[in-house]
């Protein structure tokens, strides 16, 4: 109110600088991916699609993509079920010990990944499951549960809790109430949670490094190892693909959230 145009210009400049800083590293990666150089160096010589070709036609990269998708799907499936059930349990029932359920559901978010790596490695080494997709998916599930839990919980906090009572009063038994009302009325949030769980699995490095063993690693771990060894611009191309996937999923999330929020407006107040 009353500030001059100059102050406003400086303010916008500052915002732009901070914004650039926050996404700068990402932009650098995208830039690098079109490099013509043989090694990763900054600033790159432009412009070529060659590293995308390498990524697309190299069998080792393809295998990494397949493994990422397989593990990611399994982990997403499990995390979505566990996280959603926990969210409904704490938001809609009167079980004692809700707070404890909440703590367990959020815990993996706070536990340092290096600890999950250490613990998971020790456990699965004993079970001879190092390198198994199942073992990896189980650990990724642990990482995904808190996201599903938090997203579904916050949607439930905004959804009218009496819609389930209404279904019961209209003659639906418990199972039909869950099937016809509880799940569909919160579907956008459940899908959002699932997308996050997938993204977590798809991006995770630390735990995966230890659990993938000698078998083909997932995509990000392959990037990680490539970086440690020969720093080839193909990792920039792979990373760019990962960024694009993340952006697409987040646009989907934005759409789903608007959908869920509009549903929440159906409540009288």
């Amino acid at each position, binding site marked *: 109110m009353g500030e001059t145009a100059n102050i406003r210009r400086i303010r916008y400049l500052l915002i732009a600088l901070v914004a650039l800083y926050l996404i700068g590293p990402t932009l650098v990666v995208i830039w690098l991916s079109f490099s013509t150089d043989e090694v990763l160096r900054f600033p790159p010589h432009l412009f070529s699609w060659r590293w995308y070709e390498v990524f697309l036609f190299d069998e080792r990269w393809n295998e990494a993509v397949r493994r990422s998708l397989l593990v990611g799907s399994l982990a997403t499936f499990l995390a979505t079920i566990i996280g959603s059930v926990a969210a409904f349990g704490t938001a809609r029932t009167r079980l004692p010990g809700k707070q404890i359920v909440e703590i367990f559901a959020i815990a993996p978010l706070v536990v340092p990944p290096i600890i999950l790596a250490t613990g998971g490695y020790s456990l699965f080494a004993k079970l001879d499951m190092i390198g198994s997709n199942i073992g990896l998916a189980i650990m990724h599930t642990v990482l995904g549960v808190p996201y599903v839990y938090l997203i579904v919980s916050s949607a439930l906090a905004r959804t*009218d809790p009496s*819609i389930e*009572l*209404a279904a*019961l009063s209209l003659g639906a*038994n418990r199972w039909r109430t869950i099937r016809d009302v509880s799940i569909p*009325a919160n579907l956008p949030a459940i899908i959002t949670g699932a997308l996050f769980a997938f993204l977590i699995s798809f991006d995770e490095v630390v735990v995966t490094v230890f659990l993938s063993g000698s078998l083909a690693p997932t995509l990000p771990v392959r990037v990680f190892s490539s970086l440690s060894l020969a720093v080839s611009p193909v990792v920039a191309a792979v990373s760019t693909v990962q960024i694009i996937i993340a952006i697409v999923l987040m646009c989907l999330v934005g759409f789903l959230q608007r959908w869920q929020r509009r549903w*929440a*407006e*159906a409540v009288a107040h």
Partner: protein
Amino acid sequence: MSAHLGSITGSRVQMRNLTKEYGIVRAVDNVSLDIEPGEFISLLGPSGSGKTTALMMLAGFERTTSGTIHIGEQDVTLVPPFARGIGMVFQSYALFPHMSVYDNISYPLKLRRMSKLEIDERVRRAMDMVKLPPDKFANRLPQQLSGGQRQRVALVRALIYEPHVLLMDEPMGALDKNLREELKLELLSLQERLRLTIVYVTHDQGEALMLSNRAAVMRDGRIEQVANPEALYRRPQTEFVANFLGEANLVPVEQSSEREFTLPDGQVVRSSPDISVDPSQSYLLLLRPEEIEVCAEAEAMLRGRIQSTVYLGSSIRIDVDTPIGVLTVVAKPNQSRRFERNQIVGLRFATGDAVLVPKEARAG
């Protein structure tokens, strides 16, 4: 909502010694109430009086701690909500946000495995009845409706499967004033046609007086009085009921003979013959503001000084300081007569058939 719904007649509902405890708190405390078939009964009380908990037990959403509930001939105390054959309208309306208006209304019929054709016919007819033309509204989502429209959808959804009891939990709470008046009248005419049994929870005394055949005034989990609106307003049995239903002047009186009581200024009023008086109890005389008349000093029973006047449009509220206490009087505004502060005015009221209310013992 006529045609198919025309044949409904409500069931009898009986609550017997109903109690609900949460830990050490008694939300509902030994409530018994017989509701006649086709009766519109309100559970009226301030928040925390247990009215909503009582309704939740009727619906089956809360387990009873003790006591029984009968709907019709059946003991439903342990019957789950979906098998009680009730309809319910929630304060938030509880429309399914992911279903269109049509799907919301047809949901209870689908659960009852009706044919598509019959469902379609019934839903369309019902929507027409509540002035939501299916062509325009069938495919809308609840969030695309106004408050009043949502309320009507919720009502139709709760009635379309012809339940014999309709439970309503402050259904007007979220509506603005004009809409509320309109829907109250609609609800009255609906009930007149269908003769449903309606249990209506509200904290608004005006709503309860206007809508119900009888109202149960609740306080601290117990029923203070059950009666028809006029009896509640004119012959309350407790101080709480007298104060809760509209404004009340309560003047302390002393019993002088069996039916005669003396006011603080020595005047005598005769109690209504149908009120039985306990000699060991202190009583208060109930004077509703509109029962006191402002008059010329010569005709007055009482004189007093005006403490404050408040203009309310259709009436003027005057607080008058009199020998028997400060009395609130409601007078019609009148061009020729003005009321000013500190003016001395005369008051009079009928001294026969006086309504006496037992004085409440207060702690301290």
